[in-house]
């Protein structure tokens, strides 16, 4: 009985653990702002950030600069991230699985992939702007390019590490190639695939902002750039926080939906 109570206290404490660092961070920030150690033009007071965030998210457009832009910006950014990520998934997972299983394909791809992977995304930006112009296409290109590598590499590693005995077991039970791919390869590689997707989605947000820094009219990256030009550091911080929150929520959503859709994701991680 006693033990049980201890356990439940322990569990609720455990559930709070992820919020410890953000809370401490905000407290420290407040204390520093209150003491005036850092001038507000470098780091505004958290309450100011809260006010700016409220204006940005909830007030009607036209009431104040940046008021009510949130929905429009977040929607535009979400569409860009999702399309770019989707392109990366559609190319990355099949190619990764194939090159994980076939040594010839792996050999064929390895130099190219590893060379391209070494090029920082930012160096693609000028080229992408010449190819696709300023706007959604450039951003989708950058996001897809960046997210492709972790997705591809992890899918390949996942497909490669599957025990040949599992494939032999499948073959002796009369499993053909097609069924083997979906019933053995994909579930067997699922923990790796999941890691790749999460890394890929994370990096998608980074390249989203890069793609939006180039003068598109809307999007979370665009807001940050506009705010910098107008010297609104509070809005810059609001933009950063919103991207952080959306990135975290997106990761959770990805994890949950994979677990919902696939037994292997549910049972092996």
């Amino acid at each position, binding site marked *: 009985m006693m033990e049980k109570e201890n356990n439940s206290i322990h569990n609720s404490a455990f559930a709070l653990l992820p919020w410890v660092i953000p809370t401490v961070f905000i407290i420290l920030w407040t204390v520093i702002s209150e003491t005036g150690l850092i001038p507000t033009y470098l780091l505004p007071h958290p309450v100011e950030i809260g006010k700016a965030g409220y204006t940005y998210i909830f007030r009607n457009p036209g009431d104040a600069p940046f008021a009510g832009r949130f929905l429009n910006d977040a929607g535009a950014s979400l569409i860009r991230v999702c399309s770019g990520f989707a392109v990366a998934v559609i190319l990355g997972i099949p190619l990764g699985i194939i090159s994980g299983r076939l040594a010839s394909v792996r050999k064929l791809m390895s130099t190219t992939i590893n060379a391209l992977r070494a090029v920082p995304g930012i160096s693609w930006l000028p080229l992408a702007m010449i190819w696709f112009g300023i706007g959604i296409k450039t951003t989708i290109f950058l996001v897809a390019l960046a997210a492709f590598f972790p997705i591809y590499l992890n899918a390949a590693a996942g497909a490669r590490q599957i025990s040949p*005995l*599992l494939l*032999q077991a*499948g073959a*002796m*039970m009369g*499993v053909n190639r097609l069924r083997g791919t979906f*019933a*053995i390869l994909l579930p*067997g590689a699922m923990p790796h695939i999941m890691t790749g997707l999460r890394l890929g989605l994370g990096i998608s947000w980074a390249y989203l902002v890069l793609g939006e820094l180039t003068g598109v009219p809307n999007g979370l990256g665009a807001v940050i750039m506009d705010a910098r030009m107008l010297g609104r550091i509070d809005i810059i911080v609001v933009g950063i926080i919103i991207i952080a929150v959306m990135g975290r929520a997106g990761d959770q959503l990805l994890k949950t939906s994979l677990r919902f859709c696939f037994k292997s994701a549910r049972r092996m991680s």
Partner: protein
Amino acid sequence: MKPKLAPVYKVKPEARETILWIKNLRKVFRTNGSFLTVLDDVHFYAKSGEMICIFGRSGCGKSTLLKILAGFLSPSSGTVLLNGKPVTTPGPDRCVVFQEDTLFPWLTVKENIAFGLRGRIKDKKTIWEEVEHFLSLVGLSEFRDYLPREISGGMKQRVALARVLILKPQVLLMDEPFASLDAQTREEMQNLLLSLWKKLSHTVLFVTHDVNEAITLADRILLMDKSPGRIRDEIRVDLPRPRKKEKSEFLFFSSKLYERLRE
């Protein structure tokens, strides 16, 4: 789909038909430019419903032999004929129970057992009825919803046995399946195998290096030599089952087998 109820073992051995022929099998591996003959001129047959133990020390090529029979490896020369047809690829007529754990870790016990049937039967109800039947045959009905990582090594081998028996293989190939189990569990598994064999009357080729295991199980023991691996001798074990290790007849066979092993 229900198992045959007239066990073949009641038919006299002479009256059974030969279903598996292994002829002049030879397997050479090439390593760093040199050749290693693992199997040389392996020649034997198996009758329907027979329990054959392939007995030999580690490294004598008995696992290689089994892999060729399963279709995972192709021989350098020679043929394997099942019902007159040459064996070239793996297939559900020759199922393997591996020594290692080869259950799919993302499937529950019952899903693992249903795995092979799903490819050939569309009707879900039939599949689950069959699965329930085989779950109870291997005594795992209560564990149907467990994952492989949640059950013991012995239970895993029961699942491995059930998932292939449900496919009604003509030949069951067992590659030291109980070698990594503790002595007591191993004995339980041997008894389980014998009782299932009586009920389902499939042909069994059982690879082992354990003298007692070979004598407990086999109708015939094929004694394998090392480098190159070939079948040196055949011992017919005509003891009534169940065979008790303490009986003098059993001891007679085990001393005979040890003696042949030393030759």
